[in-house]
């Protein structure tokens, strides 16, 4: 027990000190919780509304991971098409760059106009913004097959453009790239989902933040923000673990 506490202290003492300073600052200056809530207040708000927060967090998590996976799937399929048809890849790459360079705050209202308000629009936004990085990572993965491997394939009568080559060589070659895309994009997808909820007013943690703030319930708003960052770190840690676990089989 003591050793666990000690472990937590040695790893996270920076965060703990920050929390203590925050609590100290808020109590000493007697700051109103509308301006800045104390850590105690935030934690209490989380505990008192545990069910509510859990539900909203789950919703955001599901939309974010759903959008990420849909974007990934779409990215892989379109990248496969682009791999087999170079003209298509020439067409798609500038489009990918263009769409990536539109800021999300400008992008969301456009999609809302087309798709309407609601969680499905959050899903669409997350999917679209995950799609292009996945597409770029996957396509460059497919194209990364080393010359020796291509030579070997040709020597057994397998053309380096067909389906068989794609399935047995190009596709597996792209796996580390796809893992990287997932690891990098997972926290981004969460952020995108939050921002979209916030901007659209669709249910989820992003909306909780928005509404609590307008109701001047700053403990709740901060609690939602805290939860969102915890989720984001968890996403990153989860996909990093996943990445590490599977990548090791790609090192020759």
């Amino acid at each position, binding site marked *: 027990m003591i050793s666990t506490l000690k472990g937590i202290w040695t790893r996270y003492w920076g965060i703990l000190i920050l929390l203590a300073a925050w609590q100290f600052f808020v109590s000493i200056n007697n700051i109103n919780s509308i301006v800045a809530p104390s850590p105690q207040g935030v934690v209490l708000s989380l505990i008192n509304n545990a069910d509510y927060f859990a539900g909203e967090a789950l919703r955001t998590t599901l939309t974010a991971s759903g959008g990420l996976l849909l974007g990934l799937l779409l990215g892989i399929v379109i990248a496969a098409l682009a791999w087999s048809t170079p003209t298509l890849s020439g067409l798609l790459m500038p489009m990918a760059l263009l769409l990536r360079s539109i800021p999300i705050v400008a992008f969301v209202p456009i999609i809302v106009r087309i798709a309407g308000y609601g969680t499905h629009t959050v899903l669409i936004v997350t999917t679209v913004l995950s799609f292009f990085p996945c597409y770029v990572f996957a396509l460059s993965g497919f194209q990364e097959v*080393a010359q*020796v*491997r291509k*030579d*070997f*394939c*040709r*020597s*057994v*009568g*397998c053309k380096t453009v067909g389906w*068989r*080559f794609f399935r*047995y*060589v190009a596709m*597996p070659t792209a*796996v580390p790239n796809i893992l990287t895309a997932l690891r990098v994009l997972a926290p981004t997808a969460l952020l995108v989902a939050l921002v979209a909820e916030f901007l659209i007013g669709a249910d989820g943690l992003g909306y909780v933040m928005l509404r609590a703030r307008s109701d001047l319930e700053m403990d709740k708003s901060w609690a939602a923000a805290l939860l969102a960052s915890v989720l984001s770190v968890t996403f990153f840690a989860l996909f990093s673990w996943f990445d590490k676990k599977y990548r*090791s*089989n*790609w*090192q*020759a």
Partner: protein
Amino acid sequence: MISNTSHAQTLRASAGEPEKAESASSTSPSEIALTNVSKTFALGKGQTLDAVSNVDLNIAGGEFIALIGASGCGKSTLLRMIAGLEDPSQGSITIAGQSPEDCIKRHKLGIAMQEHGLMPWLSAWNNVAMPFRLAGLPIDKKRVDELLALVELADFAQAMPKQLSGGMKQRVSIARALVLKPDVLILDEPFGALDAVTRRLMNNELQRIWSQQPTTTILVTHSVEEAVFLADRICLMSPRPGRLELIEEVELNRPRGLDTMHEPEFRQILAKLTTALDDVCTQGSRQ
């Protein structure tokens, strides 16, 4: 040339087990004919490079040829042309009377290169089975097991490439090259990255494997010793443009063992070829 074929085949019959010898007689390995083969690379800006120039060579079915020469003299280029991976700029190459592409289509060609090129995400077994998958053939599981046993890696069938040593990976790569029962085996410095002791062991194994399978083999190597130990004939290439400078018959008895290397004939051929190689290389650098 003709005497060479029978020479190689009698050796095989004596070295292999009875049933292997039988299979050896049922399929006859292919002879390879190179006629006036040249390769010129375009380097851009109107510059060209003659990598291989006017090579004439006839390789008998079942013969073991070693190709030696200075770095950059065109050995790999010549091999790649024989393997159908590159088209000659001039001249023609036939394998059993047909083009290398035909040979590939009939799955009668196996290659193993200096970089083993195994698929890191597949176990040794699946790597050896890969040619079946890529060729769209049903996987002959027995054949894969057989090949892994042949290169003495039966116990490592489920190991991933990263768990294998450099020599083991090369053996998997050679097993993979042989799994479709090729008539022609093309090896480009497969043991280049290995230490001298492992290399000698691998040479021994390669000789054993070759004596059990009816395969016309062309091996590129930087080691004259390796060439003399393994080959029926050794071709020496001169650099820029790559020509065949010298063809040397190695008339040492088979199977050759570690003690063969101490025989006076071995030493003699080794000395002769080493001198010739040095001459060719210094000529190249003087130009």
